[in-house]
C-alpha cells in the first residue's frame, strides 16, 4: 500500500466549462495507491454495526451469563441506582445492560491502552527511522505481514507510514464505542456485547500495529523459531553491578538505555533488567538483558534493594512505585505522558543536572519524555548512585518477623484482604518460634499485591515478611525463556494448516495474560507442558509466557529448553509481549488465508466463521486481571476462538456460555447442500472460567473440537478429552456421545466403553458437514 496522509491542492484561478473558479482548494484526507490484486471483501474498515449480524449469531449460541460485581450503578448523578433483580436505574438501564456496559468500558480501556501504545510507538519510530521505513516481520518467510490488519481494514501496510491511517481508523472507532457507554445511549445488553466484540477486534489490530512496527524498526526476532534463550528470575541478576530496572510495556526508553550502554562500551558493566512486558521487549531487543518476572514481582524486586534506578513507561505499573523506590533510595524516571507519577518534567533540562539531582536525592525522580535522554540519564544515574546506595533494601530481617508475630492482633484483616485468602495470620503465628516455613510457603501463591499490608492495623510489612521467609527460593530463581519470536512463518502455517483444520493436531492452546493466579504461576507451566507433551501446539505471551519459563524439570531445564520453538505439534512458542498476542490471532487467520486460500482482505465474517468451525484453537488466560486482558479476550471471541480464564476471571462479571442440552443451538449449514446439520456443542463455550487447573485442562481439550474435524482428528481430540477427564475427575465424561458424529469418531482404544455410553444415550449417527453459519457461503442449495 502506498499512502499519503494528506493531499492539498490550491488553485488560484481556473477556467472551465462551468465558468471561472477562483481560490479553489481541494483537500483529500488520504490517498491510497493500490498495488494489491486481492478483491476487497464486504467489510473493510468496519463500523460498529457492520459485523453486528455476525456478533448476534455468536451471542445467540453463546449467551451472556452475568454475575454482577456490584448491585449499583454510580456513573451519573442520578445515582446511585439500585439495579438489584429486574429493577431499572433512573436512566432506564437494567442489570444486564449495566453489566455489559461495564464490560464494554473495560474493553474500551484495554483497547485504548494498546492503540495509544501503538500510536506512541509508530510516532516515535517514524521520527527516528522515517515514514518510509519498511515493515518487515519475517523477511521472505512472512508474506502476510499483518494478517489482522489485512482482515479488518483491507489494507496491506508496507511502511511505518502506512500504519498511521490504520491508527486513525482505530481511534475513530474507539471514540464511537466509548460514547456508547454514556448515560442514555445504548440500551440493549446484546448490542453492548456486540460493541464489546468490536472493541476486541480493533484492539487486536492495535496490538498488531504496535508489534509489527517495533519488530520492523527495532530488529526484534523476525518470526524466528530459534529465537535465543534469555535469563529470567530474580536470581539471575549480577548484584555486584549497577542495576537498571525497566517496568511496563512500551519499549523506546528501555531500548535507548541499551543503545547508550552499547555506544559507550558500558554494557558489560551494568545490568539491564525488566518486569512485565517491557522485560519481554528488552530481551527481544538484546537477549543479554534479563527478565525478573511477571507483574507480581514488582514489589519484591524493588524492596530487595537490587535496582539502583527504576524506569517506568506505561501499563500495569504499580501506582506506588515512587513510594516503594524511595524506601530503597532508588530514583524513578517516568517516561510516559500517561504515567507521570507527579514528578517534575525535566525533558528539556540538561542531562548532567538531572543526574545530579537524582543522585543527590534532591528529587526522588523525574519525568523525561524524550527516550534518548532517558537512556543517558538512566545509565549515568545508575553508575553514580550504585556505590552510594550499596543495594540498600527494604526487606526486614528474621528478628523483625518474630517481633511482628508477637505484636500481631490476629484480627484476620490481612487474610480477608488477600485475593487468594492466604492463611497469613496462621503462618505468622508459626514464625513466633522462628519457624518461617509456613510464611515461605505462601510465597508460591502470593500475587504480590500487598493488600495484606494495607489492611494491617499495626502496619506490619507482611508481604516483605513473606519475601524474607522465602529468600532462599528467590535466590534460586534462575531460569531460561525463549525470547519472543513475533509472527508465525507462512511456511509453518502451510505445514500445520491441514493437520489443524482436519483435527490431526489436536489443538492450538495459547497461554496469555496476567499473573493474577489462584495458586501460583506453576499451574500455567504445568498446563503448558501437559499440552505440549500431548502434541498440541502451545503458544505463550505476556506474563503467562514468563510463568511457563519459571519452571524446571528434574534435569533443571525450563519448558523452553525442553520443547522446540516451532509452530508445530509439541512446540512451545513464545510470541512475546502483550501486543505480540496479535500474532496468535494472526496464525489462526493465516490458516484460513494461506492454507485454505480464503480471501482475507476486509473479509472478517467469513474468516471468523472459518476459524470458529475449523481451527481448534483455545486461549487460556489463567491469571487474567487487566482491562487489556478483557479486550484481548473479546478480540478472540469475535474471531471464533474460545477463551478459558482462571477463577479470578469470573470477576470480569460475564461469561459467554453455550448450552449443550439445547440441540437447536448447535446446527450449522452444510455449505455443500445448504442443509442444516446438527454438529454437537463444538466449541461449547466462548468465554468460560474454570475453578481449578484440572477443570481447565479438561475444558481446553474439549473446546479444541470443531465441526470440521475429520473422523481421525475427532478421535484424537476425543481421546485427549476422555483421558484428561478420567485422570482428573476419575470418570469418563457424561457428554461424550454429543461429540461422536459417526462410529469412526470413536477412539479405538476406548471403543467398548464409549459404545456402551452411545447405546445408553440412544445415539444416532450424523453426517459431517462442510460447516458454516453464513448462508451466503452455501455453494448449492439442496434440490438445485
Amino acid at each position, binding site marked *: 500500500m502506498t499512502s499519503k496522509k494528506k493531499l492539498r491542492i490550491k488553485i488560484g484561478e481556473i477556467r472551465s466549462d462551468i465558468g471561472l473558479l477562483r481560490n479553489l482548494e481541494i483537500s483529500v484526507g488520504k490517498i491510497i495507491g493500490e498495488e494489491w490484486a486481492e478483491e476487497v471483501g464486504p467489510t473493510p474498515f468496519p463500523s460498529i454495526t457492520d459485523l453486528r449480524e455476525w456478533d448476534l449469531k455468536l451471542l445467540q449460541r453463546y449467551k451472556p451469563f452475568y454475575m454482577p460485581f456490584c448491585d449499583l450503578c454510580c456513573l451519573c448523578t442520578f445515582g446511585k441506582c439500585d439495579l438489584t*433483580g429486574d429493577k431499572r436505574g433512573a436512566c432506564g438501564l437494567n442489570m444486564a445492560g449495566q453489566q455489559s456496559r461495564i464490560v464494554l468500558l473495560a474493553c474500551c480501556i484495554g483497547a485504548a491502552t494498546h492503540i495509544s501504545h501503538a500510536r506512541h510507538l509508530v510516532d516515535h519510530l517514524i521520527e527516528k527511522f522515517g515514514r518510509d521505513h519498511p515493515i518487515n516481520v519475517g523477511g521472505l518467510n512472512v508474506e502476510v505481514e499483518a494478517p489482522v490488519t489485512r482482515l479488518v481494514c483491507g489494507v496491506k501496510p508496507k511502511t511505518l507510514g502506512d500504519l498511521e491511517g490504520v491508527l486513525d481508523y482505530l481511534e475513530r472507532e474507539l471514540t464511537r464505542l466509548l460514547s456508547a457507554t454514556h448515560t442514555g445511549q445504548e440500551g440493549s445488553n446484546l448490542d453492548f456485547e456486540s460493541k464489546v466484540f468490536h472493541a476486541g477486534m480493533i484492539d487486536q489490530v492495535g496490538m498488531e500495529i504496535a508489534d509489527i512496527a517495533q519488530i520492523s524498526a527495532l530488529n526484534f526476532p523476525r518470526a524466528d523459531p530459534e529465537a535465543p534463550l534469555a535469563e529470567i528470575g530474580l536470581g539471575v541478576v549480577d548484584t555486584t553491578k549497577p542495576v537498571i530496572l525497566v517496568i511496563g510495556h512500551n519499549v523506546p526508553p528501555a531500548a535507548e538505555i541499551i543503545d547508550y550502554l552499547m555506544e559507550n562500551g558500558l554494557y558489560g558493566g551494568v545490568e539491564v533488567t525488566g518486569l512485565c512486558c517491557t522485560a519481554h521487549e528488552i530481551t527481544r531487543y538484546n537477549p543479554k538483558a534479563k527478565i525478573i518476572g511477571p507483574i507480581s514481582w514488582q514489589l519484591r524486586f524493588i524492596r530487595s534493594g537490587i535496582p539502583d534506578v527504576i524506569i517506568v513507561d506505561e501499563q500495569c505499573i504499580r501506582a506506588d512505585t515512587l513510594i516503594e523506590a524511595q524506601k530503597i533510595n532508588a530514583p524513578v524516571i517516568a517516561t510516559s505522558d500517561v504515567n507521570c507519577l507527579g514528578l517534575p518534567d525535566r525533558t528539556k533540562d540538561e542531562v548532567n543536572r538531572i543526574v545530579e539531582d537524582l543522585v543527590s536525592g534532591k528529587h526522588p525522580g523525574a519525568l523525561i519524555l524524550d527516550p534518548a535522554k532517558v537512556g543517558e540519564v538512566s545509565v549515568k544515574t545508575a553508575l553514580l548512585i550504585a556505590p552510594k546506595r550499596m543495594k540498600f533494601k527494604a526487606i526486614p530481617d528474621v528478628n523483625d518477623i518474630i517481633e511482628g508475630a508477637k505484636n500481631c492482633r490476629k484480627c484476620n484483616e490481612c487474610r*480477608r484482604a488477600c485475593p487468594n485468602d492466604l492463611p497469613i495470620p496462621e503462618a505468622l503465628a508459626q514464625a513466633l518460634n522462628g519457624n518461617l516455613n509456613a510464611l515461605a510457603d505462601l510465597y508460591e501463591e502470593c500475587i504480590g499485591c500487598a493488600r495484606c499490608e494495607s489492611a494491617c492495623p499495626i502496619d506490619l510489612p507482611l508481604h516483605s515478611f513473606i519475601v524474607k521467609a522465602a529468600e532462599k527460593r528467590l535466590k534460586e530463581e534462575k531460569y531460561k525463556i525463549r525470547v519472543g519470536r513475533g509472527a508465525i512463518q507462512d511456511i509453518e502455517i502451510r505445514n500445520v494448516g491441514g493437520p489443524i483444520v482436519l483435527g490431526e493436531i489436536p489443538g492450538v492452546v495459547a497461554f496469555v495474560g496476567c499473573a493474577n493466579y489462584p495458586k501460583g504461576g506453576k499451574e500455567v507451566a504445568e498446563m503448558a507442558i501437559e499440552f505440549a507433551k500431548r502434541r498440541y501446539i502451545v503458544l505463550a505471551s505476556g506474563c503467562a509466557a514468563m510463568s511457563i519459563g519459571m519452571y524446571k524439570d528434574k534435569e533443571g531445564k525450563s519448558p523452553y529448553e525442553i520443547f522446540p520453538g516451532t509452530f508445530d505439534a509439541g512446540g512451545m512458542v513464545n510470541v512475546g509481549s502483550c501486543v505480540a498476542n496479535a500474532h496468535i490471532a494472526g496464525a489462526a487467520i493465516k490458516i484460513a488465508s494461506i492454507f485454505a486460500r480464503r480471501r482475507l482482505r476486509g473479509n472478517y465474517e467469513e474468516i471468523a466463521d472459518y476459524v470458529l468451525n475449523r481451527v481448534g484453537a483455545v486461549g487460556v488466560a489463567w491469571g487474567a486481571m487487566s482491562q487489556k486482558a478483557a479486550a484481548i479476550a473479546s478480540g478472540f471471541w469475535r474471531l471464533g476462538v474460545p477463551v478459558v480464564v482462571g477463577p479470578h476471571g469470573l470477576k470480569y462479571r460475564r*461469561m459467554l456460555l453455550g448450552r449443550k442440552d439445547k440441540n437447536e443451538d448447535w446446527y450449522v449449514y452444510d455449505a455443500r447442500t445448504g442443509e442444516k446439520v446438527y454438529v454437537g456443542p463444538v466449541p461449547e463455550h466462548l468465554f468460560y472460567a474454570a475453578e481449578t487447573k484440572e477443570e481447565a485442562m479438561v475444558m481446553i481439550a474439549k473446546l479444541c473440537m470443531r465441526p470440521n474435524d475429520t473422523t481421525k482428528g475427532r478421535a484424537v481430540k476425543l481421546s485427549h478429552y476422555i483421558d484428561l477427564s478420567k485422570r482428573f475427575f476419575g470418570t469418563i465424561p457424561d457428554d461424550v456421545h454429543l461429540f461422536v458424529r459417526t462410529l469412526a469418531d470413536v477412539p479405538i482404544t476406548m471403543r467398548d466403553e464409549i459404545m456402551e455410553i452411545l447405546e445408553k444415550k440412544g445415539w444416532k449417527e450424523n453426517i459431517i458437514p462442510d460447516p458454516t453459519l453464513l448462508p451466503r457461503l452455501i455453494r448449492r442449495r439442496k434440490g438445485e
Partner: protein
Amino acid sequence: MARRAEPWQTAEIPGPKKALLINKPEIVSALLKRSKRPILIVGHKAGEVKLSSGSLIDYVIRIADLTKASVTSTPVIQREFIKRNFKRVVGMPIVDIANRLIDKEWKGFNGEGGYDLVVVIGFTYYVSWLILSSLKHFSPQIKTISLDRYYQPHASWSFPNMSLDEWEKNLEVIVKGLEVK
C-alpha cells in the same frame, strides 16, 4: 453472640439486598425439608477441607442422604463422591450449573422441573460470591443458602464468618435436624 453480616473478603460489598444470617442452623434443616425441589451444589474444596469427623464432603453426603435434594458437583470432586460410593451426583462446572439455574424453562437434571432451593458448599469464597450474585439477580424465584463458613451476602441465607469448630457444630445441627422426621 451477636453476629455481623460482613463479607469475608472485606471489599466484597454487594448492594442493598443482603443475605439473612443463619443464626440457628435448624432453619436450614427446616428450609430443606420444606423445599419441593432442592439442589446441593458442591465445590472442589469439599474434598480439601478437613473437619474433626472427616472431610466436608462427608457432611454433604450425610445431608444429601437425608433429603431428596439433587446433588451436583464441580467435576474435579466427582471422584471423591465415587470413592464414597455416592452415585447420584451430576458433575458439572459451576458456571454451567448456574447458567441453567437462571433459565426459567430449565427442567432440572432429571427433567422433572426447576429447583426452588439451591444450597452451595465447598467453594472458593469469591467464586460462590459471584455465582450467588447471578442467582440473586437473575433467578428471583430460587432461594439460595450458603453453607460455607463465611458470610455470603448474595445468598438468601448465609452463615456468618465463623471458626472451623463452630462451622462443624452448625453442620452437625443441620444433619441432626434432618434426621428428625
